[in-house]
């Protein structure tokens, strides 16, 4: 049976949410920027895009393109809240909703078509409800698989509805540049161009052995992509694979060198990782520390422990041990801690009294913070720390479950 997959993509999501929440910004060129002073443009409204302002521009570059540009600091909590509500609307039409990122989702509506009166009706219902409730337009792509549905939604922006029917797949792909396919990045594109493969049609006709010779097992997948074949299912959150790691990283407001400063950030990150791990009942045995220097050189080191841990101070001690094994040659721009090698298990009562006290203390802190907000009760050395908590929405953010990271 032919599947019907829908890809819903919110247009200029962050900027649209800002324009809706502040009527004074409507119709104006605006750009959403991160909260830190070293940020870049996260997204720009369509009015700003008309001036050539693009995601990733520095604020200086953006102002050069559009002097009247209004810079709006990101309100991540608002975006995650609105995203969660929008995803709930999608669940009214099918339980098979796969949240792809904060502003994108796939839906498998194969079984819902008769119930709601066809693809167009479901599409317009979703578009109208999102528009009427949140003032945000979205582009919808509909096709027999996720690859083509995503491609279709990119074809008409903003506020588009594009359907790729099975009989139109070959014609649609024949002259389409390979970079338009989701999963073909710049590096892959360069390699394919060097093989004289410019279009999806050429990719689909390419000898599979030639592709696998160059790319390994990915080669077969690439050929299928060129032919518009994608058998991957729409995986709702409850069926998604268990997470393999719990991590947080933060770009610091200024580059730091002092050990005491680095330790303070490590403690904060350990608390964020530990809190999330404890909330979802996971323990990890491997700690990974990521460091990025001021010149953007990034490296990491990991260490596996004998026991599974999820208490913040255990994570912190392991991270400090890794830090002490490194020789930092430059000031630090970004720090990250990841807990991997995870195990989902019920908690075991510690044997020794001091460990029992530590566990009880952590549980008490968690209970207070769950009720009143992150970092309401915290380690004394974090008291003066500015900007505690997560300030960016990770691409892995999801409205529910362990990937639901609370943002500031």
């Amino acid at each position, binding site marked *: 049976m032919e599947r019907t997959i829908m890809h819903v993509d919110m247009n200029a999501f962050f900027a649209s949410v800002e324009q809706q929440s502040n009527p004074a910004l409507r119709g104006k060129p605006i750009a959403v920027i991160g909260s830190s002073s070293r940020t870049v443009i996260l997204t720009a409204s369509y009015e700003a895009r008309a001036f050539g302002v693009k995601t990733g521009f520095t604020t200086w570059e953006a102002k050069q393109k559009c002097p009247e540009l209004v810079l709006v600091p990101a309100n991540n909590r608002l975006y995650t809240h609105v995203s969660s509500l929008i995803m709930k609307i999608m669940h009214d039409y099918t339980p098979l909703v796969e949240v792809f990122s904060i502003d994108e989702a796939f839906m498998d509506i194969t079984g819902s078509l008769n119930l709601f*009166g066809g693809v167009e*009706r479901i599409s*317009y219902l979703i*578009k109208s*409800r999102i*528009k009427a*409730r949140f003032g945000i337009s979205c582009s919808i792509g509909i096709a027999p698989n996720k690859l083509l549905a995503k491609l279709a939604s990119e074809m008409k922006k903003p506020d588009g509805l594009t359907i790729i029917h099975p009989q139109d797949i070959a014609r649609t792909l024949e002259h389409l540049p390979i970079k338009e396919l989701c999963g073909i990045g710049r590096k892959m594109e360069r390699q394919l161009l060097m093989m004289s493969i410019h279009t999806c049609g050429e990719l689909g006709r390419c000898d599979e052995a030639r592709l696998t010779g160059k790319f390994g097992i990915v080669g077969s997948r690439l050929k299928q992509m060129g032919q518009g074949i994608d058998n991957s299912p729409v995986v709702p959150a409850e069926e998604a694979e268990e997470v393999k790691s719990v991590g947080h990283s933060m770009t610091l407001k200024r580059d730091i060198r002092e050990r005491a400063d680095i330790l303070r950030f490590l403690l904060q990150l350990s608390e964020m990782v530990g809190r999330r791990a404890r909330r979802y009942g996971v323990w990890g045995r491997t700690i990974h520390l990521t460091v990025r220097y001021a010149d953007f050189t990034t490296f990491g080191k990991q260490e596996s422990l004998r026991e599974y841990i999820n208490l913040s101070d255990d994570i912190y001690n392991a991270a400090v041990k890794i830090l002490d094994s490194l020789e930092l040659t430059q000031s630090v721009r970004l720090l990250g801690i990841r807990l991997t090698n995870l195990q989902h298990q019920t908690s075991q009562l510690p044997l020794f009294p001091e460990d029992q006290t530590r566990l009880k203390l952590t549980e008490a802190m968690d209970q207070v913070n769950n009720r009143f907000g992150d970092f309401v009760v915290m380690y004394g050395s974090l008291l003066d720390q500015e900007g505690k908590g997560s300030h960016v929405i990770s691409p892995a953010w999801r409205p529910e479950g362990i990937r639901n990271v609370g943002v500031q």
Partner: protein
Amino acid sequence: MQPRSTDIRVAVVFGPGMRIQPMWFDVNRKQHTIRKITNSWMDKKGETVFMHFHVTDEGALYELVYNMADASWKLEQIEVL
């Protein structure tokens, strides 16, 4: 959205090129002025062509459906905003 399927009266401006613009409608003797048409599209059941309009007033989103064969209107769905 709540399904309704109720016959309604609609005031419409018919413009050039088959342009149909509903202006207000009344349900249960209450008149609703249309603030915005968020989407419109056509579909067919057999020979009959239906025009669907998603419209908003001050408090809700409605789906109005125009039956082009007998020039009748139905309110199909409501969602309170």
